């Protein structure tokens, strides 16, 4: 609960900051806090990924983009009342929806009784992997993971195409493959 409150505090900081460098660093702190929350929620694999990808790679990418652009945000010219109202209204509707959800930590929810017990019981027999997250990711749902890598490959190609011949005024055929 304390960690979740800290997350909310950092979010307010991110909203109020105008210096983008500070925003990116706060984003890194946010990701590490999120990873701690995930450990509390028993999602150790996800926590490791979030700490390395969310706090590591994302922050580095953001800093790289800041280096290539600008680090100060200008004051908004238009009124901010309407977006604020829309956000608060959405939040109110969502909070109303939470009262029908099962309480935190309950075991007898439909989500926890559907297919998850099958994986937990049969993982060792089917795949010999004790870590159920690994066995589901790479064995039971291996094709999903293949699709995921396709998405990343496509995104990588798109980034290469976008940044191709960026810096060089005379894009020679050999220099065009430089990514950053």
């Amino acid at each position, binding site marked *: 609960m304390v960690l979740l409150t800290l*997350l909310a505090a950092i979010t307010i900081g991110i909203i109020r900051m105008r210096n983008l460098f500070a*925003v990116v660093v706060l984003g890194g702190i946010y990701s590490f806090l999120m990873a701690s929350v995930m450990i509390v929620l028993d999602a150790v694999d996800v926590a490791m990924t979030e700490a390395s990808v969310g706090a590591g790679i*994302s922050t580095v990418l*953001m800093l790289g*983009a800041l280096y290539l652009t600008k680090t100060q*945000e200008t004051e908004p010219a238009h009124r901010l009342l309407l977006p604020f109202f829309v956000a608060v209204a959405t939040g109110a509707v969502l909070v109303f929806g939470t009262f029908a959800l099962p309480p935190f930590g309950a*075991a007898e929810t439909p989500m926890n009784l559907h297919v998850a017990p099958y994986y*937990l019981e049969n993982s060792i027999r089917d795949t010999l992997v*004790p870590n159920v997250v690994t066995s589901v990711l790479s064995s039971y749902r291996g094709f999903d993971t293949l699709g995921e890598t396709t998405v990343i490959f496509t995104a990588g190609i798109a980034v290469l195409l976008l940044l191709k011949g960026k810096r060089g005024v005379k894009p020679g055929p050999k220099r065009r493959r430089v990514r950053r």
Partner: protein
Amino acid sequence: MDLLQEIVAHYNHWIIIFLMVSGLYIVVARGNMIKKLVGLGLFQTSVYLLYLSPGKILGGTPPIISEHFTVYSNPLPHVLILTAIVVGVATLALGLALVVRINEAFGTIEEDEIFAGEEDE
């Protein structure tokens, strides 16, 4: 007492909603494109929590099979969110590449200034 129980049972949902709504607010209200991407990231991570927190079972352990434990948390959301994180960083990289190109073409990453520049032409 009842109220306190209700708060403890739903506190995670409320924080998730707060994160989600503030992400939405940043994306809608702020004109700076990098700030918008940070807001999109906030929204995304709130969805991670939305998936992970109902999978937690009180008294359960991480879903690594061992003879010492009998209660495990739900592994399925973990798998989905692992995929989501990795795809999220791919889309973030793509968005940042677009921002860099926009900065090159227009000389600014503020939405208002880009619109103003287009009207002048």
